[in-house]
């Protein structure tokens, strides 16, 4: 088990900076998710932690000691790759036992450890099969057992669930979470699936273009996103972002006027999540352009003076038809205000309703 710290970590590839100076602390025994869009440098960060890539700059510390120069094989890290990276010519048992070959264990002891790890992830019936004879989910479990068998101080998971079907993903999510709690092992999960990140991890690190946008609990990334990027990335369906003008304590976006709790000036962006909008008798008007059923709820796309706005409403009576003119309303306390020039959220401002300008 270990406490991990990254200081100004940086990785330059020819022509592209994959990781652009990140600082991060991961507490001993905690579960952190690195979340971000494709190509934002998640895997690169992970591979630097594992010792596969060496950083261009900055420091990696395990329990306060610099490990930049320590080779991958000496770091004692368990890693599950996105492709699982099982060794095709070995059986599941040989795969799981591979890390133990380098530890000089007695054969009996090694066999025992393999059986133990296999039981932990419930692949004890499949030990004699080769990877090609295993399903995706089974391969994933074998890869997990191989990562755990050496009792690593740090477990790294690179999009471990992205190749599984929806049902299996759900099972493996709670499975991995249970294992992590049970073993108390420091874990870093890389994913571009926000649900995966928010349901599994204690803390979520949102990355964008090689930088950390926000590091917070799952709830904070949703309720108090630090930037426009985080607001847009967290939450599904995505938040509505409407450009607005602020002058004094008044914020105006098209026909909507809001009153800010303190003076704000300049160009701002108002964010309202689709689940915080509701149909009303009056308010912002728009024409229903599309109706998208999403199980218990329905996503409506409205075209109005504010551009296209999405709102999520419960299925039930009073559903407008396509093409209908409707009005939507919201509680201004649910809105988020961003500074357009810095893309950062303007904190400690609450909005209250002001007059709706009639059009």
């Amino acid at each position, binding site marked *: 088990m270990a406490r991990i710290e990254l200081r100004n970590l940086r990785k330059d590839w020819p022509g592209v900076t994959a990781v652009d100076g990140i600082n991060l602390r991961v507490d001993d025994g905690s579960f952190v998710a690195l979340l971000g869009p494709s190509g934002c440098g998640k895997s690169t960060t992970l*591979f630097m932690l*594992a*010792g*596969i890539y060496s950083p261009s700059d900055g420091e990696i510390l395990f329990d306060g000691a610099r490990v930049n120069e320590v*080779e*991958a*094989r000496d*770091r004692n*890290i*368990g*890693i599950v*790759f*996105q*492709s699982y*990276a*099982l*060794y*095709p*010519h070995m059986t599941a048992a040989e795969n799981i036992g*591979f*890390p133990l*070959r*380098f*530890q000089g264990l007695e054969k009996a002891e090694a066999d025992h450890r393999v059986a133990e790890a296999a039981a932990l992830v419930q692949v004890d019936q499949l030990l004699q099969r080769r990877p090609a004879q295993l399903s995706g989910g089974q391969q994933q479990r074998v890869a997990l057992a*191989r990562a755990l068998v*050496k009792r690593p101080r740090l477990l790294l998971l690179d999009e471990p669930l992205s190749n599984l079907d929806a049902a299996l993903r759900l099972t493996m999510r709670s499975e991995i979470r249970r294992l992590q709690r049970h073993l108390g092992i420091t874990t870093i999960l890389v994913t571009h699936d926000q649900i995966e990140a928010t349901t599994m991890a204690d803390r979520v690190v949102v990355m964008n273009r090689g930088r950390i946008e926000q590091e917070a609990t799952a709830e904070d990334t949703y309720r108090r996103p630090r930037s426009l990027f985080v607001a847009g990335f967290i939450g599904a369906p995505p938040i509505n972002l409407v450009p607005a003008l602020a002058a004094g304590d008044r914020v105006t976006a098209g026909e909507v006027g809001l009153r800010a709790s303190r003076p704000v000036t300049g160009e701002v962006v108002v964010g309202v999540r689709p689940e915080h909008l509701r149909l009303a008798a009056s308010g912002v008007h728009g024409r229903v352009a599309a109706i998208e059923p999403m199980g218990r709820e329905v996503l409506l796309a409205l075209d109005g003076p504010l551009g296209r706005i999405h709102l999520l409403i419960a299925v039930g009576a009073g559903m407008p038809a396509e093409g209908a003119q409707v009005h939507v309303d919201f509680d201004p306390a649910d809105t988020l205000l961003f500074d357009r020039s810095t893309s950062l959220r303007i904190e400690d401002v609450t909005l209250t309703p002001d007059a709706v300008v009639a059009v």
Partner: protein
Amino acid sequence: MIPAVALKQIEVSGSARPDWAALARRTRVRGMAGQIALAAFLAIVSLPIILPYFWMVVISFTARTGGVSADVLWTACAVIVPAVLLYSLVHLVVFSPGTRLAAGVGLTVVALALLAWLVGSRLHIDNYRFLWRANLVEEIRRKATAGGQFPSVWTAFTNSLALALSQTAVIVTVASLAGYYVSRFAFRGRALFLHGMLVAHAFPAMTLIIPIFLTLYWLHLLDTILGVMLVLTAIELPFYVFVMKGFFDSVPWEIEMSAMTDGATRRQAFVLVVLPQVRVGLIAVAVFAFIRAWEEYIFVRTMLIENKNWVMSLYLYWVADDVMGVDYGIVAAVSIFYVLPSLLLYVFCQKYLTQMTIGGIRG
């Protein structure tokens, strides 16, 4: 919305039930016709390749000093061709593997019996005397030619084996290491290196024969197996490096990374995890390298002079040169003896060789 008229038409055509049985029969007939055409085509195309080899075999077991007659060949063909045709017919009509096998065995027995009866008395192994009589050629010609004594065929065989095995060993080792390096590492001049190798491979090595000859002379490697081996290896290597690079390219990075985080050194990862993935490539390269060395003629003809250094191709050449027109049987027998190792190797490793293009196709 589909107009009502159109709907009506769909209903009408839908109500005329198709004759499923007729359709199935048509597919079957077409499939069989296609198979027959394909088999016929392959048979005709392979005839010019198979017939000379077959004739060589027949000659080596039937010819006597003085000349060759073709009647045994035609008799044998008259038995074998109908047998093969009959078996093809069985294969087309019968689908149970058991019956097919029984038919195959039965036809083989009948054909063999017929052959034994028709030409059995004409077969002999005298032409293979060279295997145990070292001075055979001199005996036939009554005098030594081609610079003195003929060596025993086993001397040539051993030389060929030494040449082919050492060349194979060097090529497999160097090509796999270099292919791995080129596949995995970015280094200054990598693109130039790759292009250079392609050019080197496309370049006709024959044009270098005089400089190579002189170089070997100065190095005192002329007329040694080692010298020829080094030259041939150098000429062949670029191609094999490319082939191995292709195989290594198709081994995912991750399993190597995984091995290294699992505690392996880079070298251990290479040996324990990467090499097993390119096993097919190694086998293919080894077989091709061996066969190429075994069949090499031009360079060994130029650079091996003394008869104690002859390899099999030279032995065959001098035998043919000395007794041709007198004793075709011996030439044919030596030829058979010469191609047998390559042929066996090829047959046993065929399934790996056909996979070579798969790995090699990625640049």
